């Protein structure tokens, strides 16, 4: 009889997730015992503290780890890739809190929104360090289920419910595919740990393995809204409460892409020619589809959703090339990208609260002059999405294209270029609306200035700072990214 071996539990490595879970527990339970007036503030404060704690913990871990190792019986991996991603995720969550704080119409002061937010971040932090198919699946479901609920949390609005249900149906469909793929990979190798899969996959008999790989790719591509698996994205982004969209658009991408990178390099290094090319093709489709569809959008959130699809294309380029430079490019790209996404949705949220209705592009007219700070921030985000300095995303694109060129896939970089040119139309459409269109003011009936919202403004300012800061401080950040991917085994 085998003896019971208690696995070695690396509490330090789990600390970010644990801090978030603790925060989630606090926000779930404590407000019930607090007076109604302070619940909201308390929850937000605790959530922020938990996110900061998680971020700091991850940062400390990052500083201490110089190579990766499996923890808790190799279920997770403690390495800088995960820790860097965790910092970015915590940051996105933190920004999202600023956006959420004044969101009207939420359940009165009960902390469950923040519970879900923390849980989602926790799930993602878990997910990015997943080191086996099982933890991958569980982490995915963890944060997905949190997100399903968050999307639908504005239960008054049919749009929110619709978004939630759509996300749930398509998401579960994707999860089921991912699960079946995992099963096939397990069947092909007999292993669920990533490294073990790589070791066991050496054989020449690969049919089940590649079928499983295909299904895993589809499941992950779905999560990062790469075309043609992106179709949930516009509906869900548009229907979900804007702060949720802000968070989801940034964090899901970070988590999904980092894990994709980890899975493919760690477990499927032997199948490199399959996934590199197919991801490149998916990237191209995303670039084309996202940009084209965005051209004709009128709703700003939907426009940004399609932009997110196109950026999935950009972000898949560095993964597809499968080189260390690509890894660096991905991690660096994600930093300004996450901030810009949260920031731009935050501004949409602010406008939405001001107008008390969904924001269309023409609703932005005159905003640049009336709300100068939001205007400038939004303009910088839009210019940044195009890839103009001084947004860090410019360097992100530079790195992504560099990775493609270095790999010898100049054509991929050129596809990216063409897509960027197309994207100019709609990003500048937003800027044009804010500054150029005659400012027939259409404020909320109350008129005048909108309610002060320092939390949201802080979030926007922070996003802006990250967006611009990543440009100027690119050197150190890229060093971080390099450390993050140092021990991945890139096929090229």
């Amino acid at each position, binding site marked *: 009889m085998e003896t019971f071996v208690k696995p070695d539990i690396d509490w330090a490595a789990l600390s970010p997730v644990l801090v978030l879970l603790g925060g989630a527990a606090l926000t779930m339970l404590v407000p019930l015992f607090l007076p109604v007036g302070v619940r909201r503030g308390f929850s937000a404060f605790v959530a922020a503290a938990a996110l900061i704690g998680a971020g700091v913990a991850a940062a400390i871990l990052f500083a201490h780890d110089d190579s990766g190792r499996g923890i808790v019986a190799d279920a997770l991996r403690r390495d800088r890739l995960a820790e860097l991603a965790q910092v970015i995720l915590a940051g996105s969550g933190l920004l999202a809190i600023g956006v959420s704080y004044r969101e009207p119409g939420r359940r009165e002061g009960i902390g469950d929104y923040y519970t879900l937010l923390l849980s989602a971040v926790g799930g993602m932090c878990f997910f990015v360090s997943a080191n086996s198919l099982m933890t991958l699946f569980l982490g995915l479901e963890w944060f997905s289920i949190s997100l399903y609920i968050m999307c639908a949390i504005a239960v008054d609005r049919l749009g929110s419910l619709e978004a939630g249900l759509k996300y749930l149906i398509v998401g579960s469909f994707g999860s089921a595919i991912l699960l079946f793929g995992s099963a096939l990979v397990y069947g092909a190798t007999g292993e669920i740990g990533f490294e073990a899969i790589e070791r066991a996959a050496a054989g020449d008999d690969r049919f089940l393995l*590649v079928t499983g790989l295909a*299904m895993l790719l589809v499941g992950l591509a779905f999560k990062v809204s790469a075309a043609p698996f992106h*179709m949930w994205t516009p*509906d869900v982004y548009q229907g979900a409460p804007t702060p949720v969209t802000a968070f989801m658009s940034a964090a899901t991408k970070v988590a999904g892409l980092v894990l994709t990178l980890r899975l493919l390099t760690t477990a499927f290094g032997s199948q490199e020619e399959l996934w590199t090319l197919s991801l490149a093709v998916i990237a191209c489709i995303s670039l084309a*589809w996202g940009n*084209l569809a965005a051209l004709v959008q009128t709703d700003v959130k939907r426009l940004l959703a399609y932009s997110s699809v196109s950026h999935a294309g950009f972000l898949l380029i560095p993964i597809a090339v499968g080189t260390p430079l690509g890894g660096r490019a991905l991690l660096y790209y994600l930093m300004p990208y996450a901030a810009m996404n949260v920031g731009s949705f935050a501004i949409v949220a602010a406008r939405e609260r001001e107008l008390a209705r969904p924001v269309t592009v023409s609703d932005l007219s005159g905003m640049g002059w009336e709300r100068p700070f939001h205007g400038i921030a939004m303009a910088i985000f839009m210019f940044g999405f195009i890839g103009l300095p001084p947004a860090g995303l410019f360097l992100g694109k530079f790195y992504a294209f560099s990775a493609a060129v270095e790999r010898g896939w100049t054509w991929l970089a050129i596809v990216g270029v063409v897509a960027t040119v197309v994207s100019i139309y709609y990003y500048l459409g937003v800027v044009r609306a804010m500054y150029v269109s005659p400012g027939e003011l259409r404020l909320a009936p109350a008129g005048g200035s909108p309610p002060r919202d320092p939390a949201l403004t802080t979030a926007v300012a922070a996003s802006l700072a990250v967006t611009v800061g990543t440009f100027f401080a690119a050197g150190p950040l890229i060093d971080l990214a390099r450390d993050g991917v140092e021990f991945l085994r890139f096929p090229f």
Partner: protein
Amino acid sequence: MDVAAWICLASPAVAVVLIALAGDRMPRFAAGVLAALAALVSFIASVICLIVLLGEEPEGRAGHGSTLWTWLSAGDFRIGLDVVVDPLSVFMMLVVSGVGFLILSYAVGYMRGDVEERRYHAYKALFLFSMLLLVQSGNLLLLLAGWGMVGLSSYLLINFWHQRETAVAAGKKAFIMNAVGDATFALALFILTQHVGALDFATVFDRAPEALGDGTTLSALVALGLLGGAVAKSAQIPLHTWLPDAMEGPTPVSALIHAATMVTAGVYLIARTHTLFELAPDIQHLAAILGGVTIVVAGLIALVQTDIKRVIAYSTMSQIGYMFVGVGLGAYGAGLFHLMTHAFFKALLFMAAGIVIHALAGEQDIRKMGGLGRALPWTYRFFLVGALALAAIPPFAGFFSKDAILASAANEGTLGWSLWGAGAFGAFLTGLYTFRLLFIVFRGEPSGFVREHLHREQFEGPFAMAWPVAVLAVLSVIGGLLQIPGVWHAVDDWIHPVAGSIEEAPGSTALLSALAALGLSLVGIWLAWSFYGRPGYGPARARRRWPWAATALERKLYFDDAYDVVFYTPSTRLATGLERFVERPLFLRSLTGLGGAVRLLAGRVAAAQTGLVRSYALALATGLAVITIVFLAVT
């Protein structure tokens, strides 16, 4: 001497700057005086140069020069801000600044009271500066600079009264025709820089025979380019049409200023670069031929013109034709001599015409004039002097200089003889049209128009206008004595160090040719007298008999029409066509069209997002199916 040369060049420029900067603060009159003074300073400086040069040995007179600073550079290729002080340039400086001074003085009186008098004087000073730059420049590039700026000044002067549509058009035409000349000139310079490596006179003339070769295509191209510039500037056929139009310009003075000085620049250029022309004898002869053709054509057209200034303008063309014949045949001294005398009597004629126009309150149509001799006796006399000089009647200046040219031509074989023939026929025409003008304007009974409009002034105009005319009249009478063919050759000798004439006509030939030409001139004058000097129907009969000839001459032998058909209309059509069929559809609308197509596609793509969640799942499933098939197939 160098200082004097620089002062000569700079003083009109200073005047321009002062007048421009002072603006309203300077009285109008003062502007004119300032300009005239500047010209005077230039003239004095020229005289100083002359005196200094005279003090030197003839062979040592060439080659003086001075450089202020490098004007333009490219690697080893350097162009200095050079002036050259040698007999040729001093000769031209004297003519330009001397006649220029007289003209500017005259203008002070003529322009008195015009609203924009200051601007006018500034333009004139600018003109003088440009002209001096042209003749003083020590290298071909600065010569071209002066060349172009002269064109610019003439443009400014021609459309001085810019409300007039015709003046504006004439100004543009003059400038653009000259620009054509500038362009060919510049092309010649490109060849020179490529093969000679420098543009200063000394180096170019020194190295050219070796670098370009004698009689080679290269030399021919260089000479052709320079000739193009010269032809355009000197209004020779076929680039002549701007000059008569320029007479549409508002003031006779401005007309004068280029008639008397600027148009002779071509002659100067050929004389200056004779080394290059001599390397390409065919082209030099071409210059002479063009000159000969111009003599005849311009003389013919002048016969039917009705604008007093136009007649004189055509005569200018014709006279410059003589000069071209001269320099084209290598008789540089003769050509330049005629240049000088022509400056005197042509200026005289224009000034006298100016007094007439002034007196008639701006009227220029000779058909409305008549019998002015009594009203303006001194003017009549001055005009007569000018006309006699122009018609080359001894002992007036024109006789000696024109005769020198004809004599040289007579010595040049077949080509020379044909040119001589043209020149002699030109002499006949000159006599005819000159005296036609004289008789119509000054003789006969005063017309109604004259009686109505003539306002007699004290001494036929202000003193400022009168005295330069008088000076010029004197010069027209005695200027010809400077050089008498077969007797002495002051001009030839003077410029010999720079441009030694290759021809020396024997005295007998010279005499014969002079007599023949004189005879023809007298015939012309007689004919003019018989047609216009007394009542008669000669002209009308001739017109009835050869209506086509009259029309052809009145249409100026269709040169303008030809240019319209050959150049202007096609280029305008081309531009319009490009705009309509290339620029708009291809470049301006291209992106719009592409954008439309993309947007259409985008609409289709977005329409795929039906809102049906099952379709989203279907997309997922389809994508999965495709990827799996591909993966399996590849594996």
